[in-house]
C-alpha cells in the first residue's frame, strides 16, 4: 500500500498532470527568491574587503555551479531508477534534465571566467576545478547526443542512462578538486558542516538565489518533462483527454 506513491510517480498521466499543476508555482517562487537574492546581492549586500563589487558575480556563479552538479546527479539518478526498476518516466526526467544542466554548466563556466579575468588575472586556467567542470559539460553533450543517436528511442534512453551513470564519477572530483589539488579556485564558502565564511548580509542573498535556482530548475524541468511525456506518449489515449481538459 505504501508503494502507491511510487507507482503513481511511474505513471505518465499522473506525472504530466503533476508537472502541469506545480510548474507555475515553481516559476512564481523561483522569480520571488531569485528576485530578492539578486536585488539584495547586487545592491544591498556590502562590497567585499578584497574584491570590492566584483565579488557580486558569486550570486550567479556559485548557484549555477552548484546546480550544474545537482542537475547531473538528478539526471543520473533518474536514469538509474529507470534502468533498475524499468520505470520509463525516469528516462523522460533524465532527458528533460540534460539540457538544463548543460545550461547551468555553461553559465557557471562563463560567469567564472568573467570573474577570473579581473580577480585572478586570467579568463581561464587549466586548473583541476575548471577542467573537471569543462569535462562535466562534455559529459552533458555526450549524454544528450547519445540519446539522439539511436533510431529506437528506448535504446537511446537506456544507453544515455548508462553513460550518465558512468559519468557520475566526475561529480565528486569536481566537488573535492579544490581540496585534493593546489587549485587556483578558492574552497567552498558554504559547506555542510562548517560555519559559512561569509557574514549574513552577504550570505542570505546567496542562499536565496541558490534556492531560486533550484526552484527554477524544478520549474523548467516540469515544462520540459511535459513536452517529453507528450512526445513519448503520443500514441496513448490519455493524451487527448489531458489536452482537451485544459
Amino acid at each position, binding site marked *: 500500500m505504501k508503494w502507491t506513491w511510487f507507482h503513481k510517480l511511474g505513471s505518465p498521466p499522473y506525472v504530466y498532470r503533476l508537472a502541469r499543476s506545480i510548474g507555475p508555482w515553481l516559476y512564481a517562487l523561483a522569480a520571488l527568491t531569485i528576485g530578492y537574492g539578486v536585488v539584495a546581492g547586487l545592491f544591498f549586500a*556590502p*562590497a*567585499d*574587503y*578584497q*574584491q570590492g563589487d*566584483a*565579488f557580486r558575480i*558569486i550570486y550567479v556563479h556559485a548557484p549555477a555551479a552548484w546546480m550544474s552538479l545537482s542537475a547531473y546527479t538528478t539526471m543520473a539518478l533518474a536514469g538509474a531508477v529507470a534502468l533498475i526498476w524499468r520505470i520509463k518516466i525516469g528516462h523522460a526526467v533524465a532527458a528533460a534534465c540534460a539540457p538544463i544542466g548543460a545550461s547551468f554548466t555553461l553559465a557557471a563556466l562563463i560567469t567564472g571566467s568573467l570573474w577570473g579575468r*579581473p*580577480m*585572478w*588575472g*586570467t579568463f581561464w*586556467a587549466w586548473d583541476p576545478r575548471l577542467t573537471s567542470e569543462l569535462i562535466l559539460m562534455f559529459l552533458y553533450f555526450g549524454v544528450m547526443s547519445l540519446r539522439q543517436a539511436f533510431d529506437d528511442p528506448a535504446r537511446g534512453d537506456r544507453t544515455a542512462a548508462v553513460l550518465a551513470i558512468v559519468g557520475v564519477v566526475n561529480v565528486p572530483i569536481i566537488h573535492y578538486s*579544490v*581540496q*585534493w*589539488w*593546489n*587549485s*587556483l579556485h*578558492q*574552497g*567552498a*564558502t558554504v559547506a555542510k558542516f562548517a560555519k559559512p*565564511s*561569509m*557574514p549574513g*548580509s*552577504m550570505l542570505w542573498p546567496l542562499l536565496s538565489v541558490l534556492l531560486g535556482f533550484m526552484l527554477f530548475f524544478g520549474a523548467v524541468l516540469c515544462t520540459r518533462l511535459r513536452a517529453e511525456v507528450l512526445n513519448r506518449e503520443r500514441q496513448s489515449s490519455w493524451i487527448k483527454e489531458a489536452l482537451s481538459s485544459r
Partner: protein
Amino acid sequence: MTPRRKRLWVVLGILGGVAASVALAVMASRENIMFYFDPTQIADGKAPQHKRFRVGGMVVKGSVQRNPGDLQVRFVLSDFAHEVPVKYSGVLPDLFREGQGVIAHGTLDGGGTFVADEVLAKHDEKYMPPEVAASLKNKRAASTPKPAATPGNPQT
C-alpha cells in the same frame, strides 16, 4: 557456486578494487603531482632548476617595487617560513596587492630569483565587508598574528 555466493565474491572484488585504487591515489597525493612548490620547498632546494613550475605564497608587505615607465615589477613571496624573490614583467591582476596570496608560473634563475611569466592572484573563500575586515585586523593585531589562508592549503 551458487548465485548468491557468486554475487558475494563480485561485491568483494569491487570493494577490493576500489579500495586499492583509492590507496594508490592516496599514495599519489603524498607526491608532488602538480609541479607546485612553496617558498620553503624552494629554500630546501626541492624545486627544479630551469624548468617551469608554480610557486604560491603571500606577497610580503612593502616588498613590491615597480619600475617607473615599464611593466617590470619585483616582489617577495612568503609562506611565513621562507621567502623567495620574484621578478615579473606584465599586467598584474586587480587583486594583486601586498598581503595577497598569488600563484606565479615561471622558472628559477641561477641566483635564486623566480622569474615569472604569469602571475595569478588567488583569493580565499572568505568574504566580508571592509569594515568587518578592518575591525578583524585590529583584533588580530592585538592578539598573535595568524596568517589567513595561504594558496597552498585553501581549506585550512
